[in-house]
């Protein structure tokens, strides 16, 4: 469960996240749409405790990010827009390193299986990440998110850089995780994927939630038109 309560963040007087209330329950995939600079990444940073809010609170499965940041982070799997890894480590080693940091040891077989689930070609797993493409690094990030077995997933444009097939596989994975009771917050510009994967769609404008729709309720609405309507309003 991911929760923000009247969450507010300002940067030098400019309000990036404005009195934001969100509640993403287990099994929900919440797609956060919004133009550049709307505050999507800032919201994710606040949930990770990487930013200190000026007002309000963020919670992960009930744990307050402000007072118990380590516990909150341990319950989060996070895939950034650009998964940055150690180029001198192989894919397996990177996965091993970061998942151990989160307090989980895996055997080599488990790590290889995770990378496979994330769609990384088997031959790449023992290659240095320095030789990876952006999409391959992204897949290591997905494997890492799987490795944490967290009940909350934060995704910041996770499929950017993935080819259509990988992107499709990721959708399937996401739905499966939601089926297992994971709460997902996904910041994205991909209206198509949002419509496909999300159970709810939120539109963020200037740090405020301008629209919040259950995907089922807008099945027959053109999402692009709806989004643009919000932008012009």
């Amino acid at each position, binding site marked *: 469960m991911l929760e923000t309560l009247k969450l507010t963040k300002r940067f030098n007087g400019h309000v990036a996240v404005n009195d934001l209330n969100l509640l993403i329950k287990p099994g929900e995939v919440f797609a956060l749409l919004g133009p550049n600079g709307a505050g999507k990444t800032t919201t994710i*940073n606040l949930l*990770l*405790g*990487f*930013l*200190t809010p000026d007002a309000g609170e963020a919670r992960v499965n009930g744990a307050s990010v*402000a*007072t118990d*940041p*380590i*516990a*909150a*982070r*341990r*319950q*989060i799997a*996070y895939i*950034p827009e*650009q*998964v*940055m*890894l*150690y180029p*001198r*480590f192989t894919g397996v*080693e990177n996965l*091993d*390193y*970061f*998942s*151990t*940091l*989160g*307090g989980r*040891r895996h055997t080599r077989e488990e790590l290889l299986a995770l990378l496979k689930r994330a769609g990384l070609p088997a031959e790449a797993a023992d290659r240095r990440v320095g030789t990876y493409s952006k999409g391959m690094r992204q897949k290591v*990030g997905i494997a*890492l998110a799987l490795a*944490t077995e967290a009940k909350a997933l934060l995704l910041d444009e996770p499929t950017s850089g993935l080819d259509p097939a990988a992107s499709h596989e990721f959708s399937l994975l996401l739905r499966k995780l939601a089926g297992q009771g994971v709460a997902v917050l996904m910041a994205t510009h991909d209206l198509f994927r949002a419509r496909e994967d999300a159970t709810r769609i939120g539109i963020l404008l200037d740090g405020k939630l301008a629209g919040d729709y259950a995907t089922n309720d807008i099945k027959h609405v053109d999402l692009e038109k709806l989004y643009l309507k919000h932008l012009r309003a």
Partner: protein
Amino acid sequence: MTSHLFKLELRLLARERVAWVMLVLFAAALGYGLWNGGRLAGQQREIAVAISKDKESFHAQLREYLGRQSLDPKAVAGQGTMAVLPPAPLPLLATGQSDLSPGHESVVLWKLAAPADTRSELENPSHLLAGRFDFAFVLVWLFPLFLLAMVYDLMAGDRESGTLRLALAQGVAPMQWLLRRALARALPILALAALATLVAGMFGSPGGTTLRLTLALAVVLAYGLFWVALAVAVNVVARSAASAATSLGAAWVLLVLVAPTLLNVSVETLYPTPSRPELVAAGRKASGEAEKRGGDLLNSFYRDHPELAPPGQQADFAAQHLTVQGEVGRAVEPVRQKFDAQLAQQQTAVGRWRFVSPAIAAHEALTDLAGTGYWRYRAFREQVNAFKQTVADFYTPKIHRREPLTMADYERLPRFSFREEPAGDWLERAAVGLAGMLVLTGALGLWAWRRLRPSRLEPLSN
């Protein structure tokens, strides 16, 4: 978990070619420093052995001669006695003063008033700059550089590249992460330094060096940890690997190059090194005056010491010389004491201000523990002075009374044997130095820890 991460950090380090180059270069520097120190220590040991052999054969001859007949004391006194400072307990650790001061002095009855040639000078902190390539130089100067080459980028680079965000998002306590990495990356260089210290200890004088060596090891590690803590602190604030490297480079210049020079200049200004020519001139002046009054001096001496008056009050040249010399000694004594006091004052000031830079504290502690520092040479100088008095006390009455030296005197002949400083003295100095370094290290660590609380990641993750 922690040990697995430690292993992974080491593996990451091992993938950097620079790390291997640094390790090899450091090993070479340590080896060269030890070899240099070993050469000097070997030469000094040879000298000490040669002197003691000479002494033994002289005494054997003397004994044999006295067994047959008595001997004019002037003949023996003229030969003099060598006062020898035994080889330092851990000479390879630091050359210290041992290449300035001979560590032995010939004590000759006729020359007792001449100022000693043993120079025991201020442990000039900028001697660090003199480029003497001994083990202490490698440790104080180069060790931090090699260490920093490994640990300058602990977190700053991760912050720049974005791996830090991913790492912190896993829910690791930032300070724990930083410390583990710092220790893993420092480990190879620290281990090499520790190993070299133990090697230096193996060539120490046998027996009684275990405590010194243990402390030296602690000093080396504490000094290394100080630099690691500094790298940790810099990485807390640095936004890029390059800026961390620049800051740490500047810190090295400041602490290793500038601080010792500044301290030396300040100490020289506040407590100027006493002038040796002044001491020599005072001696000349006193002996000139005393010689003019030679006859009077002798007469008054015999008035004060009638028991020493020779038969018929007919003093010979030797008796006159000794009387003049005694007078010169008394006249010069205050000047000599002032000279020594000034040196001691300088050294005390250095001791007090050594924590301006751990480089100074470490160098002081290493020379002290090696037994090549100011204090052991000072102890030697003081004991030689006392020994001169013993020599004078032994021969002077015999020469005045023209008593021959007999077999009965053989056992009572003045012989110099150096008493090492009480262990408590050097122990205290070294322990204070060590504690000071640990306090500095702890302060840096505490500061970093307070800056890196898990709830205060905003400065890190943006």
